[in-house]
């Protein structure tokens, strides 16, 4: 908790020009850089996705070589996970956590800068592999051994070090967020008064610190197997390629919650505002997030049911996995209960939040199907899996990020966005994203494998539909870009409160907030 802070006279020598951004220590500037970086990566990863959808438009090989297709699926996954979704949530944390808890800035502003400025270098390394001999990584974003060890091109070493750098960035960013939340709260802001977005990020940061080092360990072992003759993932020397999957998914499963928990937090801020009711079951929301985080550490091998585990292992991981449905169900129930008999209005953030609740639940239910071991042996590595994780990550995480952007954009820029265009963006996105991903359930259940550039003609109709939806969804994000730019350049000035039903410290500050958010910590009742 804050000690009493006396406000000294500000002697601004604000950095200007490029120095403001490159030497930045201000949480808002760094948050802005995170958000723009993630949007750039979102467009790049989206472009790769459109290459995939263009190739899959009709059966047969038309546009790209199979190896390049594999590079596209791999880089699409890596860029979207590590470059788009994660930095976007960190950007929102940077912007909003100090405002929400009544802090002047993040706890360690210089380290905050470094967390961000590693990312452009790391992704330059990763993307530069496209222009090197051997091409970009083509073994899937999960980079299973031996595809990524014995059979991978030499550029894989750049990928490995790129992952190391992203890990440094994530760990430093997470340490900073934890220190900020634990140490910089305004007097009276007890833990159980924290806004839910802050709670979800506290727990997400813990997950990141726990699992990013394990990913670093996995890629380090890859590096050793590739270049120094070790046998970690080679059965001839007593190792095991399946070990790679265990280590990877020990990171990978918490990683999916790292992407979705902040989304939960954003939606939990938005729904009460537009339902004009306090969040239903605040304490149970906090405990549910903590329970999901705990369970995420003990369910990883449900990604590996088809690999040949002992039956006892499959049963354990199946039961543990299905347990996650309970805290997740609590959350969905509470969001719906918050809306129940509320005085609801449907501005763009609320529309995206409601779409999140509905569509994320669809993804959650298909996840439950995949969590059942005997059924998963049918669904494994089909488009049903692709449909599942795109429902939770695109209509889940990405929709929540868009909701958050519309919700907080007036606070960030000082201007209201164009509500009419926002609604158009919402409806085009929501319809097209379902045209894109819903048919994948059907092609997957019919047996279409993922990560394949060509397919049997029986899957043609569903793929045609998916591709049409994909292109509409992809290009409709340019409208999102336009709306954001338009709001930055001006418009109807935003009030401090912005939304009629908005509650919390961030709405007591001006829009946009002053340079050092809270110079005097506010008193929280």
């Amino acid at each position, binding site marked *: 908790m804050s000690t009493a802070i006396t406000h000294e006279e500000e002697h601004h020598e604000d950095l200007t020009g490029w120095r403001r951004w490159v030497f930045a220590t201000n949480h808002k500037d760094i948050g802005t850089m995170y958000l723009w970086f993630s949007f750039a990566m979102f467009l790049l990863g989206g472009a790769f996705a459109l290459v995939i959808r263009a190739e899959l438009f009709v059966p047969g090989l038309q546009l790209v070589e199979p190896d390049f297709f594999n590079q596209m699926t791999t880089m699409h996954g890596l860029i979207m996970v590590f470059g788009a979704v994660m930095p976007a949530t960190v950007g929102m944390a940077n912007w909003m956590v100090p405002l929400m808890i009544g802090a002047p800035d993040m706890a360690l502003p210089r380290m905050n800068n470094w967390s961000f400025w590693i990312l452009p270098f790391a992704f330059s390394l990763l993307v530069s592999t496209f222009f090197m001999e051997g091409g970009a990584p083509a073994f899937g974003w999960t980079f299973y051994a031996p595809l990524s060890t014995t059979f991978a091109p030499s550029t894989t070493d750049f990928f490995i070090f*790129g992952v190391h750098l992203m890990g440094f960035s994530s760990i430093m960013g*997470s340490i900073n967020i934890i220190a900020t939340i634990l140490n910089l709260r305004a007097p009276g802001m007890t833990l159980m008064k924290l806004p839910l977005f802050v709670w979800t990020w506290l727990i997400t940061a813990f997950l990141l610190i726990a699992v990013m*080092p394990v990913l670093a360990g996995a890629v380090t*072992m890859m590096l050793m197997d590739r270049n120094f003759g070790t046998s970690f993932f080679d059965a001839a*020397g007593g190792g095991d390629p399946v070990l790679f999957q265990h*280590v990877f998914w020990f990171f990978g499963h918490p990683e999916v919650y790292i992407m979705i928990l902040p989304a939960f937090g954003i939606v939990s801020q938005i729904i009460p505002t537009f339902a004009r009711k306090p969040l239903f079951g605040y304490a149970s929301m906090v405990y549910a997030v903590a329970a999901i985080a705990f369970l995420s550490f003990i369910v990883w091998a449900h990604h590996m049911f088809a690999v040949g585990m002992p039956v006892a292992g499959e049963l354990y991981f199946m039961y543990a996995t299905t347990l996650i449905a309970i805290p997740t169900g609590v959350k969905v129930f509470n969001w719906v209960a918050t809306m129940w008999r509320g005085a609801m209005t449907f501005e763009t953030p609320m529309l995206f939040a409601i779409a999140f609740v509905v569509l994320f639940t669809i993804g959650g239910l298909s996840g439950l199907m995949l969590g059942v071991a005997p059924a998963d042996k049918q669904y494994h590595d089909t488009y049903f899996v692709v449909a599942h994780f795109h429902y939770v990550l695109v209509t889940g995480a990405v929709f929540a990020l868009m909701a958050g952007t519309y919700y907080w954009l007036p606070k960030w820029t000082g201007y209201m966005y164009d509500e009419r265009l926002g609604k158009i963006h919402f409806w085009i996105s929501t319809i097209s994203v379902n045209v894109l991903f819903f048919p994948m359930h059907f092609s997957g259940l019919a047996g279409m494998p993922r990560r394949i550039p060509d397919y049997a003609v029986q899957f043609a109709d569903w793929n045609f539909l998916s591709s049409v939806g994909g292109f509409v969804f992809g290009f409709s994000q340019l409208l999102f870009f336009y709306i954001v730019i338009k709001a930055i350049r001006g418009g109807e000035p935003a009030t401090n409160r912005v939304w009629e039903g908005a509650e919390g410290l961030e709405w007591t500050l001006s829009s946009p907030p002053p340079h050092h958010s809270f110079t005097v910590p506010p008193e929280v009742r």
Partner: protein
Amino acid sequence: MSQTQGAYYVPHGSPWPIVGSVSLTLIVLGGVNLIQSKGDSGLILFGLGAIVLTVMLFGWFGAVINESIAGSYNEQVDRSFRISMAWFIFSEVMFFAAFFGTLFYARVLSVPWLGGEGDGAWTNALLWPGFESIWPSNGPENVGGAFDTIGAWGIPAINTAILLTSGVTITWAHHALKADKRLQLIVGLAATVALGFYFLYLQVAEYIHAYQDLNLTLNSGIFGSTFFMLTGFHGFHVTLGALMLTIILLRCIRGHFSSNDHFAFEAVAWYWHFVDVVWLGLFVVVYWI
């Protein structure tokens, strides 16, 4: 370039993070070229990166030390540092957990499966008939050739005693610092540094012995892999810890730190204890049982 924001110190822009990013990128580019043996360019890039990184560390920590001496930090800032160091050490624990997990997986699951246990009967019968699961193992194809292991009660036991003693000496130094006994502080810290480097000397001797006399190398199958990965990364962390202790020692000699304000000392002491505890785990599961 800085201002005290209320009482919580908010630095006002810093060039060091971007310098750090450039140095890491140079190190990575040089590292890949070195690993893939693409001539001298790797060494040049790597060396350049290391130099830039060193400059960055001195510049960044120098700035922090100056701010600390100038009295910019209050208790709350100190608490931020403490929280951060604690969580950083937790991330290091998880890094080692990945390699300990790998060792346990190999010993308890993958090598026995290759020997025909559990679901591995057909793997054993069809691929490697006659392979028996034993530990230490370099796998069914005898990767790297026959090798001997390093017994627990030679150098490793001595190294355990060295690290445990260094844990005592640094605690002695800490108590001396809190009691303002500067001479004891410097002697205790110098002893810790000396023990740390002596540990490293013995570890290097052990590696040379393993490579030259025992044919135990990185190529010795899963045993060699896990042995050198765990002890190697531990040794790397001891090196970092010893260097950090050296810096702290130099600062103590220069008269830095006071009995109630010495976060840097404590952070390095925590780190040193962490390295110590990892070694105890290593000694038991890598060398002993």
